[in-house]
């Protein structure tokens, strides 16, 4: 089943993974799941379901948990302990700890050097591997697709199903090729590519599809940059986004703690090399972006598709014919209190957040640090590393000192101000520039107004206090 004869129909990466994971093909396909990641917010009711039915976790060895969403990022200086937002957060976390203990699941918890945002730690531990099916009760599970895995978010009922059976009923998704050609210009990054794609095809442009990012530009991006792109696939409606595994993938995984070792490594790499899409395979949909034409991107509205190049003007609802789209845009601009037709450049801001499963990895922090070096922040700025491991690497490299000297807050790892469940939030009516993935109304706190952007653009806003084109600042290497 793992080899492809020369006579068979050319297949996409998605089709190869799908075909190797079908357990039963009846009225609905039963698909096997190789890796199940768990966190505190979407799992409690699933474990309760198991207990009520007297079921066990079928494969605790393929199930891994961490704590990220409701975890505080601030340590109380009076007792050196994390300051939890409220008793509900504490209860939810305690419940995950006891559920993992009861069902024999590895938990990278509060005292673990591997704790972090679920989509940051999976890859860095080497849990995420090419050709896998990966699920998690979180829509940004798409991140893991950067390794050539089929990774998608599921609801809590499905979390329970995977815990109990390691399987899910699934409908085969369609193939959507995203051809990324050309070379990025100075100051433009992976985040700008994905924002440009979402703006181009719309927030539901890929519903029912899985993206495969292809082309010269993606081949030349690092794994961390590929993760940033795959992460936001869901913001265009795609449940998953993937990149064919290549030498960059293998180099990243080699020597990761839970990646295969020795002979198993060689065997795994030769298997992984069979996954890339065959020449001549057919995609249901296709889009091409020449990334050399991109500018830094920023959102102006209340969904990630409402994004424009940083020097462009905010669209005018009066110029839109479709009544639904027109009213959405009107509502968004009213929520954001932004007038149509204006440029966002120089718009004052109140907060900057650098973090989230989209942009909290070492290279994201390094990019931001280049901007902070020798400058001071003009607004409240949170820098939240994606994991304990990222935090340690950054501190070993002295990057934390650059942030601290600039006056930014260097926090403990977690989802933090991306979802604002842990006490880190933007005040009502205030503006933030955020490296996270969603600018929905109230996402960063009730009434908060979010501009999504890259770490470079967010850092530029932090040091100027307003929306700034990173290319207008003198930065050494970009």
């Amino acid at each position: 089943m793992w080899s492809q004869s020369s006579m068979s129909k050319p297949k996409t990466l998605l089709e190869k993974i799908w075909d190797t994971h079908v357990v039963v093909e009846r009225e609905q396909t039963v698909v096997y799941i190789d890796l199940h990641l768990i966190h505190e917010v979407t799992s409690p009711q699933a474990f309760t379901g198991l207990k009520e039915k007297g079921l066990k976790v079928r494969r605790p060895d393929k199930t891994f948990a961490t704590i990220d969403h409701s975890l505080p990022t601030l340590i109380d200086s009076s007792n050196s302990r994390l300051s939890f937002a409220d008793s509900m957060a504490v209860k939810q976390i305690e419940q995950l700890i006891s559920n993992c203990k009861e069902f024999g699941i590895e938990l990278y918890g509060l005292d673990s050097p591997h704790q972090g945002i679920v989509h940051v730690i999976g890859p860095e531990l080497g849990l995420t591997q090419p050709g896998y099916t990966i699920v998690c009760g979180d829509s940004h599970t798409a991140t893991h697709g950067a390794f050539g895995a089929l990774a998608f978010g599921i609801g809590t009922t499905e979390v329970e199903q995977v815990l109990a059976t390691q399987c899910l009923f699934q409908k085969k998704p369609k193939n959507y090729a995203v051809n990324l050609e050309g070379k990025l210009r100075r100051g433009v990054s992976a985040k700008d590519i994905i924002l440009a794609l979402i703006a181009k095809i719309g927030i539901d442009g890929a519903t029912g599809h899985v993206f495969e990012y292809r082309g010269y530009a993606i081949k030349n991006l690092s794994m961390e940059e590929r993760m940033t792109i795959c992460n936001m696939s869901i913001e265009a409606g795609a449940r998953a986004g993937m990149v064919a595994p290549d030498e960059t993938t293998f180099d990243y995984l080699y020597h990761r703690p839970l990646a295969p070792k020795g002979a198993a490594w060689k065997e795994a790499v030769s298997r992984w090399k069979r996954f890339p899409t065959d020449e001549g395979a057919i995609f249901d949909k296709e889009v091409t972006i020449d990334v050399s034409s991109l500018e830094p991107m920023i959102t102006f509205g209340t969904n990630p598709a409402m994004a424009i190049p940083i020097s462009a003007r905010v669209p005018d609802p009066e110029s839109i014919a479709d009544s639904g789209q027109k009213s959405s845009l009107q509502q968004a601009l009213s929520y954001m209190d932004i007038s149509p037709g204006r440029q966002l450049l120089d718009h004052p801001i109140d907060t900057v957040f650098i973090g989230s499963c989209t942009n909290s990895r070492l290279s994201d922090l390094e990019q931001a640090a280049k901007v902070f070096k020798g400058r001071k922040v003009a607004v409240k700025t949170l820098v939240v590393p994606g994991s304990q491991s990222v935090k340690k690497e950054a501190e070993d490299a002295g990057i934390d000192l650059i942030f601290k000297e600039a006056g930014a807050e260097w926090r403990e790892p977690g989802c933090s101000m991306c979802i604002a469940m842990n006490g880190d939030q933007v005040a009502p009516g205030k503006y933030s520039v955020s490296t996270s993935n969603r600018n929905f109304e109230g996402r960063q706190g009730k009434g908060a107004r979010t501009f999504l952007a890259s770490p470079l653009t967010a850092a530029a806003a932090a040091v100027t206090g307003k929306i700034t084109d990173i290319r207008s600042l003198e930065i050494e290497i970009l």
Partner: protein
Amino acid sequence: MKRFEKFSSKSILLPTDNIDTDQIIPARFLKITDKSDLGKNLFADWRYSSSGELTDFVLNRSENQQRKILITGDNFGCGSSREHAPWALVGYGLRAIVSTSFADIFRNNALKNHLLLITLEPSEYSQILATISSSPETEFTVDLAEQKLSFDRDSKEYSFHFPIDQFSKRCMMEGLDELGMLLSYEKEVANFEARLPVYPL
């Protein structure tokens, strides 16, 4: 799960496009460890201000209480995978959502909670909007067996056929438990696992 029976109800109209799950149930309500009380926080940030209910929001209007059908814009349920969204909709008392399209993860989650998603063609949806705008008290009948949304107007019946995958339909019609079905494939799963490549996990 109970079987999904045919029912009739007037509707609540919220015709905004791209309503995301953060609006359906804001993240601060996700700290619960059960499924209770979510209905009262459905659309919390559109429904309440710090001083209480916002009287002009559709869910707060007296005539809309007890209605079981929500008619809403394109791409309903986009965003996060939180199943708290359908839990909140069902907890509030809704049984069917009518739109021109739904986001994928929300669709899965909704159907698993027997919240019926009725996808109409844009022209059909426009007809429904026109009907409600002239007669807001129109009573709709939802018939899953026939995959039909219908209403009477000027003593004539109008009906729209809607698609649904046959597996979800059967699960809802027969009140089937998906987990029970998956567990029944134990042998097939064990066989599959036996021929998996040796994973390093």
